[in-house]
């Protein structure tokens, strides 16, 4: 078990190296001279050349990449081309908004999605089941930003109950969280339904029923405990996807999170900021996936047993 965990954690190193290499290469291909960008169109050629030299832009590709990685290890992601602020500081300031958004959304998804999935499975082909299957299909086909716009149209414009933009208080989080939850609800509901349907047909469930266990006890104790493992995995996967998906929803509701930071950075071709945000998002994504895999091994005795020897 210890060996497995160590192996998985060590695997993080090539991932981070690979991801940063890919992003660095993509950004390297980007046309335009950053020195020109910083100094503006009025700058003389000498000034541009001098700044390029100072920034190490004339170095070969691999030297530039190596220097960037040296900074990354120390937590220094360079400074923004636009305002000179430290990229790490900018990201640290924006990250809590995105994290809160993703965390509340996933909580909503669990509170709504899992019970609906369970009920659909227990009462297969009932009205609730039909409605939830259709709803899941429809929600999964809608673009997240459009769901956001429609919620805004209903709650902010028509009913005037909730503010359309901003992130000043918890009220601002309601619409974005609902949007993100709606998009991810479908996956979790479907997964809960299908694993529960599978579990309900198992022999041990029949045995429990034959022994005379009540329906509630059968569902709660025998089915739920065994059916929740894949559901937990999918919830965790959705959580890491949420962090990436928040980009669009943050722009719809003008929330100052990592996603909108990335979008502004791209619009103003602020390469260090783009690279920093993408690498940080990718690292978070990878770490969450690692934690899921480890959790999986901890929760499921069958997987634990594989590594016990």
């Amino acid at each position, binding site marked *: 078990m210890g060996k497995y965990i160590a192996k998985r954690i060590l695997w993080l190193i090539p991932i981070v190296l690979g991801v940063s290499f*890919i992003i660095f290469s*993509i*950004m390297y291909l980007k046309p335009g001279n950053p020195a020109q960008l910083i100094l503006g169109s009025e700058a003389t050629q000498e000034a541009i050349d001098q700044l390029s030299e100072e920034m190490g832009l004339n170095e070969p590709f691999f030297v530039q990449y190596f220097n960037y990685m040296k900074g990354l290890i120390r937590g220094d992601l360079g400074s923004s081309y636009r305002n000179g602020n430290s990229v790490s500081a900018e990201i640290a300031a924006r990250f809590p908004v995105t994290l809160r958004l993703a965390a509340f959304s996933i909580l909503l998804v669990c509170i709504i999605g899992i019970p609906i999935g369970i009920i659909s499975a227990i009462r297969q082909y009932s009205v609730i089941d039909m409605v939830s299957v259709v709803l899941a299909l429809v929600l999964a086909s809608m*673009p997240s*930003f*459009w769901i956001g716009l429609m919620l805004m*149209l209903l709650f902010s414009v028509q009913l005037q109950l909730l503010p359309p933009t901003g992130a000043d208080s918890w009220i601002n989080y309601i619409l974005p969280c609902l949007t993100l939850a709606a998009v991810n609800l479908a996956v979790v509901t479907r997964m809960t339904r299908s694993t529960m349907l599978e579990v309900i047909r198992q022999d041990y469930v029949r045995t429990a029923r034959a022994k005379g266990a009540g329906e509630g006890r059968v569902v709660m104790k025998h089915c739920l405990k065994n059916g929740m493992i894949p559901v937990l995995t999918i919830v965790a996967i959705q959580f890491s996807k949420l962090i990436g998906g928040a980009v*669009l929803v943050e722009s719809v509701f003008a929330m100052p999170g990592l996603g909108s930071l990335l979008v502004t950075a791209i619009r103003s071709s602020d390469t260090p900021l783009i690279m920093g945000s*993408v690498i940080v998002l990718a690292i978070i994504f*990878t770490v969450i996936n690692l934690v899921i895999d480890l959790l999986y091994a901890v929760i499921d005795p069958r997987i634990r047993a594989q590594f016990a020897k």
Partner: protein
Amino acid sequence: MKRDRQQGLKQGKFSAVWRRMKKNRTAMAGLVILIIIILMAIFADLIGDYNEVATKMDIANRLMAPMKKGLFGTDHYGRDVLARIAHGARVSLIIGFGAVLVSLVFGGAIGATAGFYGGRYDNIVMRCMDIIMAIPSTILALAVVAALGGGIFNLMIAIAVADIPNYARVVRSSVLTIRNADYIEAANAVGAGTAHVLARHIIPNVLGPIIVQCTLGIGSSILNAAGLSYIGLGVQAPRPEWGNMLSEAREFIQSAPHLIIIPGIFLALTVLALNLLGDGLRDALDPRLKD
């Protein structure tokens, strides 16, 4: 002789799939919606000429409600929304199909060779795919667009790049299950070359899961493209695309909500149609569900 028999077998397989598809009412509904949208895209110029209607400003008739002027009203420049929806369908479908084609070709080649040759090559290639998958796909597409710039072609590439690992995985796992089948061994035994075995035996037999993945992939590519265009990094105005129509309409959410409702409905309908069709194909292609 041999060729005839194979042709016959193949036709038999396709018509069996089609027979099962026809029984699935939701899948057929998806197919009908998709055909209507494809027809709309093909005949977009008949619905409204690109230069004369879809991108022509007419400030006197701006922000007209649906049915007051044209079927879907007009936008903030007085352009006809129906014509813009039809031309937008063209862009969305081209990007959706194009992105899937690109990632299928590259992902398919990577996955097929990895699954076929196995060993160290397989290991290295699939670890590289893992690294690409470690970047959330929206974010990777954003980064590629940031480097290449907007526009239909770049958008297609950006979305395709992020999807390549998915196709590589599907194709690889299908190839792996088939590689050890008896008929492959038989083909090898009679001296068939690698290329022949790949093209004649492996590819036709892994088509099922790939078709399903592609159908669902077109839908998600359309959503991704619309999302990137919504934040202003994809298809650029004045060319109409459903995502950038939504982003232009956001300012007028109070005065002209139809500008937000209509493009979204078309996006959702198209993707829903593809999802229904994909699910139907999965059931029809799965021999375990055979009637």
